[in-house]
């Protein structure tokens, strides 16, 4: 791939051919405000906030504009600023002013864009305010959908389509009535949604937000214990309790993605009924035992049942390496090919 040089607001930057202007700007640490763009997804060009002027001539959107050698881009042209500002003002005029209690507060892209383009109370007060009052969809056990906060960037729709191939949601209705909807506008829990939460983490506002939970005091980097994939996670910890999980962007295995269990299924860790020691059956009753006692018991019983009497069923919750060892152990030590695997979570 060859490299090209473009100029953004007088700054010469180099970019790879095939990049969009927005990608090139981001790769060079330049901020062009945007709402519907997400690095993991194909550009949609719907929010119109990343509007720029190309070669002092054409007003267009930077997220779909391929870089070209010698291209001159202005993000501060007065006409560009005007369109961008009005567009953001329109979004805010139709957005609930509940920032302080909002899940997305301080990480909200709409807030960021609003600050950047210079929204003031005076500029907003010129507008007729109107916020939708669609009831919250709380049907999903892990996250809620608030259509009233939705800015219709479509990131959730594209995530579900391009990344997850589930297509549980899409656009419905038209005009101001348009909204992101499941098939037949049923509650999300009745749709084909698998609750992976990939859309939730990408939502730039809090139209999709995890059910109210405590914020962590610190994060611990770990590996998800659910299956052999071994996704990288950051456990959000408060005191000695886990209050949240997020995918590790740096982990080469999952690059930030998680499934429903890894992302939302962490409450078992602090569950009072969770087993914390081995149990050994004595006189028909399971009683707590030490690891040494338990392992000794296993050695004893296994030695008595070598050969075709024995079968091993391995779990998808352990690593591939451990699964390998189980079959090796079953064949080499127990002397049988009776080995199977549940092969699913």
């Amino acid at each position, binding site marked *: 791939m060859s490299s090209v040089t473009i100029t953004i607001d007088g700054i010469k930057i180099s970019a790879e051919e095939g990049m969009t202007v927005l990608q090139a700007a981001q790769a060079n640490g330049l901020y062009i405000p945007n709402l519907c763009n997400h690095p993991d997804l194909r550009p949609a*060009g719907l929010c119109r906030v990343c509007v720029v002027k190309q070669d002092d001539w054409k007003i267009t959107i930077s997220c779909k504009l*391929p870089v070209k050698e010698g291209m001159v881009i202005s993000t501060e042209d007065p*006409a560009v600023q005007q*369109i961008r500002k009005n567009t953001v003002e*329109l979004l805010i*005029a*139709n957005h609930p002013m509940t920032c302080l209690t909002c899940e997305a507060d301080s990480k909200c892209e709409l807030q960021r864009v609003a600050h950047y383009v210079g929204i003031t109370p005076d500029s907003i007060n010129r507008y007729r305010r109107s916020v939708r009052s669609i009831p919250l969809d709380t049907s999903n056990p892990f996250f809620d959908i608030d259509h009233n906060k939705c800015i219709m960037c*479509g990131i959730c729709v594209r995530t579900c389509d391009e990344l997850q191939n589930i297509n549980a949601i899409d656009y419905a209705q*038209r005009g101001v009535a*348009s909204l992101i909807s499941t098939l037949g506008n049923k509650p999300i829990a009745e749709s084909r949604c698998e609750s992976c939460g990939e859309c939730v983490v990408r939502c730039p506002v809090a139209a999709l937000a995890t059910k109210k939970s405590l914020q962590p005091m610190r994060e611990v980097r770990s590996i998800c214990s659910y299956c052999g994939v071994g996704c990288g996670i950051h456990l959000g910890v408060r005191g000695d309790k886990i209050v949240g999980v997020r995918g590790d962007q740096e982990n080469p295995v999952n690059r930030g993605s998680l499934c429903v269990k890894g992302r939302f299924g962490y409450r078992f860790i602090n569950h009072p009924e969770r087993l914390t020691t081995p149990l050994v059956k004595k006189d028909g009753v399971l009683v707590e035992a030490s690891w040494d006692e338990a392992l000794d018991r296993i050695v004893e019983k296994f030695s008595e049942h070598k050969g075709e009497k024995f079968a091993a069923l391995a779990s998808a919750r352990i690593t591939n390496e451990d699964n390998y060892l189980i079959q090796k152990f079953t064949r080499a030590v127990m002397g049988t090919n009776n080995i199977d695997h549940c092969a699913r979570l």
Partner: protein
Amino acid sequence: MSFAELQKKARQEWDELQNGDIPQIIVGTATCGRSAGAMAVIKAFEDALKEKGVQAVIVEVGCIGPCYAEPLVNIAKPGKAVIAYRNVTKAMAAELVDSYLIGDDPLPHYTLGTIGEKTVEGIPRILDTPSFKPQERRVFRNCGIIDPTNINHYLANEGYAGLNKALGMTQEAVVDEMKRSGLRGRGGGGFPAGRKWEAGLKAKGSQKYVVCNADEGDPGAFMDRAVIEGDPHSVIEGMIIAGYAIGADTGYIYVRAEYPLAIRRLERAIKQAHEKGFLGKNILGTDFSFDINIFPGAGAFVCGESTALTLSIEGKRGMPRVAPRPRTTEAGLYDKPTLLNNVKTFSSAPMIITRGAEWFASVGTEKSTGTAIFALTGKVNNCGLIEVPMGITLREIIFDIGGGIADGGKFKAVQTGGPSGGCLPEALLDTPIDYDSLDAAGSIMGSGGMVVMDEKTCMVDVARYFLDFTEIESCGQCVPCRLGTKQLLDILKDICKGKGKKKDLELLVELSHSVHGGSVCGLGQTAANPVLSTIRYFRDEYEAHINDKCCPAKVCKPLIAFHILEDKCAGCTLCARSCPVSAISGEKKKVHVIDQKLCVQCGVCMEKCPKKFSAVECVSPKEKIMEVA
């Protein structure tokens, strides 16, 4: 059968009908005629013919345009001029059979004029009447003349001659002819059709498509329907020629599902074209094959946008594709090179090939050749579909063809181009009709809607009306269009209610420019045109609403009040008896009074008050009542 033989046979059939011994009763039964009662008129003719034992053929044709004269019936008696009768009723049908078919009195007071070269004393030639004289019938060449369900009628009138000729030309020569004709896309955008065809030809790909946009969605525009219902083969022939020119083998007609008659006519025409060998494998013995599918529209205005339309055919949600994107001619339907044109553009193609580019360009202006079709409506005397040479002025259309303002009113504005167009004032009445002049004036050619408004029209209310439409019909994907049209509408609604603020005008203009510059597709980009053009030319009306709470046209109900003039009221009680909310009190022969708290400003009292008294007055702002009182 060779084309020459097909044509010869068709001409024989046509000539026999035209020069036969049996009178013809030709009834316009397009949707417009039907809704005006044409089917009942046919029944009345049949009954009268049967009862009196008169022999005549009843032929159903499409629409020739003048809605104000529907139902239209042409009677062709052997050896006589064809006479067009207007507003024919069941009673008139029986009378015409008696007087004209049995007797020889053509009843001139019922006529619109005569058609053709022959004349009848006491009846003008229709083309000499002020309403038709400035018109040039090209796309409408066969509408209202031929039976649209009979392919032979079309064949006898130059039909499929363009295709026959095109198949003997190279693809490049066909494209070149289209380019030289100067035809610009009749869907409203005005992109040179020949250049689009050229791009379609040059586009690489073994699979290409031709798509006809018949998703006519502008309120008040129905010319595409008239063309399809009146002359479906012209559209089909144009599409086949286009298919040959660019190397496509499949065509789609995306037609409004709300046009059931048009769909039936197309289905029938496609079947007939297959039977005659104009569609299907090896058309007219060449190695060119082409077929056409009909796709009933999904019911959204935005599906008339070319990229939304192709997505809709694919079964997806009709949302315009976001630019920068490849042109439809490079990646359109199913991402294949696609030539998409409007009904009228395709219908023009056969004429251009048959008669040549020079003939086509002989009318119109240098940059806008040919004719334009408008749906002339609103406060004009003669509303209906008109076809005029490009370059004609708005004044000629409204005052000659349209017969001036209805009810002796005064002209105020004309809105062209449907919801995306603008309102032009009296000072611009001499603007010539062509793509560029209308654009410069702040309006557009658009799909050809033309609404004439008189002084009783409130321009703020007009802008509100159009924004109401675009707000609902926005696809909702991009912010400036989805929320911008809503904001503009909310502000306009407030202004109409007298709740406008001083800074609203500034905000309307600012937002309009941003909606124009920021929106994804043409719908959004032009949505603010009605706002911008009314502010540009009728700013004083906005200011009156905002500053004085006054609606000068006395339309906006919250800003008007009705009042009974003491010195004129004769106490006839008519108003009190008509008031739907019993807001008027007063005894017989005594002055009546309207209770302003109860009044809903419906205006019935003013309508009912006998002209000789004219005692009810409408005032705006409302406070004026206090002054009067």
